[in-house]
Each structure stands twice: as structure tokens, then as C-alpha cells.
């Protein structure tokens, strides 16, 4: 037989090849397949749509209609008084000649901002928590572990697949919300006014990094825990503080000067990039297989 010369590694972990660039084709493939499965899972997307509808459509519609149509002057005065706790800059930005109009404007612009954070985080956390441990539980992790797709590509694909449903729901919900606000409050404040510049910054600059940061933690958990149920529990613990931080920061971003939003977003982006890079290391082929990885 022809000789084959191989060198034993003598207990040292073999070195891997120098890092190559990310194979975005593989990332897209993993993400697209995960999303396709989500679309097929009716028991996932029906609650997701319900959540978005409640937060972006049902509750705002009811509250804004009540405020703009309410005839009880006392309630409106109380709401107007409440607005006085807002920062001066925020108060100056409030439009409307009547107490009702000002109260409705403030509620539309400031008080519903956290919804834009809560909805995507809730949905994406639910998806992300199951994504890696779910592969393991279904046995499909074996297929991925033996496939030529790199672990970075698998991680990024799953990140995108987790991020997309939440963010998509938020963007669609945001569109509906804008329509509702302009239709109900617009006539009272001199025309369509929503989204305000701060909302654009919030949606495009502040929310995405908070989402990415949370998902980086959730995916790390999903790679390490033994079951989807455990991943959901642990993700709840991790994401709750982040939701609160995101809640306060997004609110502050809207209340503060324009530059505050940009700064908060920038800090969140830096944290997200660090979190994502560290989270990438959590996904290994051994974990996809569901075997202990330690020596």
C-alpha cells in the first residue's frame, strides 16, 4: 500500500487554518432556511402578528381615540399637567393648540416609543432562544455540524433569522402606527406629522443595536443550554434587563436633544459588535452535535 505520513498532534489541539472571509452566501442560505421554517410554523407567526397588532394598532388606537374624543375636561387637564414633567426641549416640540391635541401628540410621540423596543426584543428573543438548541433537539444540528458551512456563517445566519421577524414586525407595525397617529391626531395638530425625526433615529439607529446585543446573548445561551425550554427561561432573564435599558434609553433618546439619540445608538452599536463577536465563539460544531466540548 502506498504510504501515508501523518503527524500526531500529541495531545495538542490542532491549529485551524488562517481565518478566511465570511461566506455570505452560506449566511444567506442558513438565514433563509430558518426563516422559511418560521413561515411554515403557523403556531409561531400567528402569536407574533397578534403581539405586533396589539402593541402597534389596538392599544394606540383605543388610547388616542379616547384622548381626542374625550369630553371630560378634567381628564384632559390632568394629562396636560402630566406633560409638564417632560424635559423642556420635549415640551417645546409638542404641537397642538388645545389640551386634547397636545396630550394626544405627546402620547403618540413619547409614550409609545418603548413599544418599538419591546415588540422586536420579545419576538426575536423567542426565535433566537430556540434557534441553536432547537437544531440540537431536532437532530438537525448533526447535518449542520457535518456541512461545509462554517460556524461563523451558521451563527450569522441564525442571528439574521432571529433578528428579522422581530424587526420586520416592528417596521410593519411602525407603518401602521404612523398611519393611525396621523389619522387620529394629525387633524388636531395641523396635519400629518409622524414619524418625527427622533422616531426615525430610534427605529433605524437605536433599536437595531439593542436587538443585536440582546440576540448575541440569547444565541450564546441557546448554544450552551440543553433544551429549548431552558433557553427560553434563561433568555427571559437576560433580555428583561436589556429591555428595561432599551426602554429607558429609547425614551430618553426621544426626550433629549437630537445628538443624544445618536450617542445612545453609537454606544449600543459598539456594545452590539463586541457582543456579537464574543457570541460567535459560543457556536461550535460540538455544540451543534450536542456533545460536551470540554477536555
Amino acid at each position, binding site marked *: 500500500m502506498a504510504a501515508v505520513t501523518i503527524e500526531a498532534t500529541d495531545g495538542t489541539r490542532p491549529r485551524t487554518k488562517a481565518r478566511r472571509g465570511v461566506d455570505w452566501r452560506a449566511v444567506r442560505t442558513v438565514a433563509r432556511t430558518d426563516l422559511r421554517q418560521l413561515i411554515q410554523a403557523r403556531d409561531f407567526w400567528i402569536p407574533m402578528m397578534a403581539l405586533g397588532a396589539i402593541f402597534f394598532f389596538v392599544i394606540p388606537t383605543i388610547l388616542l381615540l379616547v384622548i381626542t374624543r374625550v369630553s371630560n375636561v378634567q381628564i384632559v387637564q390632568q394629562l396636560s399637567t402630566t406633560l409638564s414633567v417632560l424635559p423642556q426641549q420635549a415640551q417645546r416640540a409638542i404641537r397642538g393648540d388645545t389640551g386634547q391635541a397636545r396630550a394626544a401628540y405627546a402620547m403618540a410621540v413619547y409614550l409609545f416609543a418603548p413599544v418599538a423596543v419591546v415588540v422586536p426584543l420579545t419576538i426575536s428573543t423567542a426565535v433566537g432562544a430556540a434557534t441553536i438548541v432547537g437544531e440540537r433537539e431536532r437532530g438537525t444540528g*448533526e447535518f449542520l455540524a*457535518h456541512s461545509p458551512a462554517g460556524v461563523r456563517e451558521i451563527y450569522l445566519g441564525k442571528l439574521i433569522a432571529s433578528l428579522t421577524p422581530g424587526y420586520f414586525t416592528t417596521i410593519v407595525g411602525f407603518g401602521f402606527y404612523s398611519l393611525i397617529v396621523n389619522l387620529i391626531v394629525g387633524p388636531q395638530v395641523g396635519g400629518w406629522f409622524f414619524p418625527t425625526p427622533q422616531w426615525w433615529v430610534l427605529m433605524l439607529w437605536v433599536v437595531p443595536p439593542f436587538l443585536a446585543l440582546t440576540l448575541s446573548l440569547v444565541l450564546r445561551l441557546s448554544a450552551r443550554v440543553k433544551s429549548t425550554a431552558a433557553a427560553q427561561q434563561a433568555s427571559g432573564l437576560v433580555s428583561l434587563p436589556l429591555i428595561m435599558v432599551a426602554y429607558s434609553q429609547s425614551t430618553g433618546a426621544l426626550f433629549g436633544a437630537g445628538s443624544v439619540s445618536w450617542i445612545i445608538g453609537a454606544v449600543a452599536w459598539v456594545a452590539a459588535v463586541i457582543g456579537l463577536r464574543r457570541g460567535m465563539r459560543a457556536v461550535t460544531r460540538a455544540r451543534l452535535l450536542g456533545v460536551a466540548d470540554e477536555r
Partner: protein
Amino acid sequence: MDGAAAGTLQGGTPAADTDVMALTEPAVGARPAATAPPPPPEPTVVLRGVARSFGDNPALRGLDMAAPAARITVLLGPNGAGKTTAIRTITGALDPHEGAVRVFGLDPMVDGDEVRRRCGIVSAKPSLYDLLTGYDNLAYAAELYGLGRGATADGLIRASAARFGIDHALDQRAGGYSTGMKTRLALARSVLHSPELLLFDEPTSGLDPESSFAVLELIREMTAGGATVVMCTHLLLEAEGLADQIVVLEDGRSLVSGTPDELTARYWPGAVVRLDAEDPSALDRLAGADGVLTYDRENGSPAMVQLDDMARVPDLVRALTLDGVRLTRVEPHTPTLEDLYFAVRGRSRPEPGVVPRDPTPIDDRRLKSGNRIGRRFRDPFAASPGGN
């Protein structure tokens, strides 16, 4: 075991396991002849001293093995022997803690993407996405293995599905497939990209005999195209007739490896005859007879006698008859893979109704159904026309 039965079929003393070396190194002092045949191709897979643990539990303890190119290598062993871990180190899905792995001459831990791209694998569970259709499962693999999404990939998907008889169900969700169909889909997925190395981890697990037979036939067909196959199983009858090369694993080590004929010759260098009599204990006198290499008889069972030459059979029969032994059976016995397996593992078969501590399941169902792939072991009578 009957105390009078002094000999044993396990009494052979095979050489130390140097099979990997034999596969990979030319004999010392060998001089190439002028008309020497071309050297066989390099083994597609070589594992040398591979150790792998999971926490405190060692799964592989210095495993040596080689899988020759364009052959079917079967890894045999009981549950927990390390078969699946060996497969996983071959693709680089698991890193060896010690030792070295070479696949196509590459280190899977360094060139893992390249190795995995050239491998096709079917694991014990089909690893399918139940929510996706059969087509989408194949399309996912096609994309990951670099076949893209165009008409070429579509053609390959449909051809592969047709090859395994599931083309009619491509539009259905894989979750609705029967176990047999899932295995067929997994097989179709594994060959989609025309891999050079196919790794099958108990591919017939959970299949009915008919589906198992079909799957094994398909595996045989695949090697005809030049692909190398490494298959692990604990179903001995499944491996029999399929294996070109056998590696018996136990406790993460290779006990022995070689072709079935080599191993049979090593463990049973002589001819094996099965004898029975009205009083089986009367056969025990054969234990010390001339030409008898080993003698084995369990209570109530026929005697298995290994002779140095099949030509001794008529003399033995005559001698027994003259001694008044009333023979009821004299037949040549071709050692099966099952015989070989237990001989290699150095233990007798479990007593009926007794589950051994380290069980190796034998699929009796297949024995009864007659679903056998065909024996490849040499029939000593057939090899000697005229019966000597």
C-alpha cells in the same frame, strides 16, 4: 460451555493488530518487481492514535484505522464502542484530543470546509427539517454544498430523489414522511453533491427489512461509482456481504481490521465442520484427534471442529462410526461475520434470555425474514470441487 470441550473457536491467536500499518506502509525489504502492479491508492481516511473524551468519559482511546479508497469499510462494535465519534472526527465535526486524522490527505481540523464539502453523511437520525418539504431539505443541502439554486441544482435534486424513490413526495413536508422515506431522503441528500467519501452511521436504524435491504443495495451501488464508504453498524448481518473492509471497535479502540477473507483466514486458518450426533458428548473425543485444530461444543449444540484440511472429514466420520457414534449431521460451516465478530471480541455469544452487560444487538428479525445480503465468506466445499 461443556467442560469436556477443550478446544475453542476463539482459540486462534491472530497477529497483533497491525492493519493500519499494513494498509499504509510497504513491507520491509519488499523489492518491487519489474512487472509489479501499480500500488493501490492511498487510503481515503486514516486515523492514527485518535483519542477523544467527553468530559471524563473517553469515547476514543487511541483509535487506529484506515479506509481504503473506493471500498466499503464497516465499523463494527457494540453501543458505546466509539463508532459515531470516529465518524464525527473524520469530518472534523469533533476535534481529536490526541492523535491525527487525515481525510483525502487533509487534516479536517485545518481544511475542514474542504473535507466536509467532499463528504456525504447520513447519521443515525435522518437529521431532516420536518417543517420543510423534501425538496427544500435537498435544496438547503445543495446550497450549503455549493451547488447553488439554479436549474443545475434543481436537476440534481430531482435526479437524486428519483434515485432513492422519493421523487413523488418532494412537495410534501419531511415531517410527514415514513421512517423509510426519511432515510431515503437523507441518503438522497448525502449524495446530492457527488461526494468522494460517504459516511453512514447506522443508516438502516429503524427501518423494516425491505427498506433496509433497499438501502444497503443502494450503498453498494454508490461504491460502484468509485466513492469510498465508511459505515458503522452494530447489525452484523447488515455488514455481512457488504463490507470490503471490517474494523471491529471496542471501548474506543480498534480490535482488528482487514478484509472479511483476511480476518476469516486469520481466525480460522483451517476448515470448519459442524458435527452432531444422537449423543453429542460422544463427539468430544474429536478434541484430541489428528488434524483437529480447535474443537468447540456447547451443551445441546452441535460441535464445531476446525480441521487442518477438509480432506480429513471422511476419515473422522469413519472413525466415529466405527466407535459406535451415531452421527446426525456432518456439514461444512462457513464462518459468518457474527462468528468472526464474537471471535474477535473474545467472548462467546450471550446465553439465550440473558442480556450481557455490554450488549451487541443481533437483528433476529432479519434472520427470520431472510433479508440477507449474501455471504461472502468462502465455502470450503465449494473451493474444493469433489469434496477432497
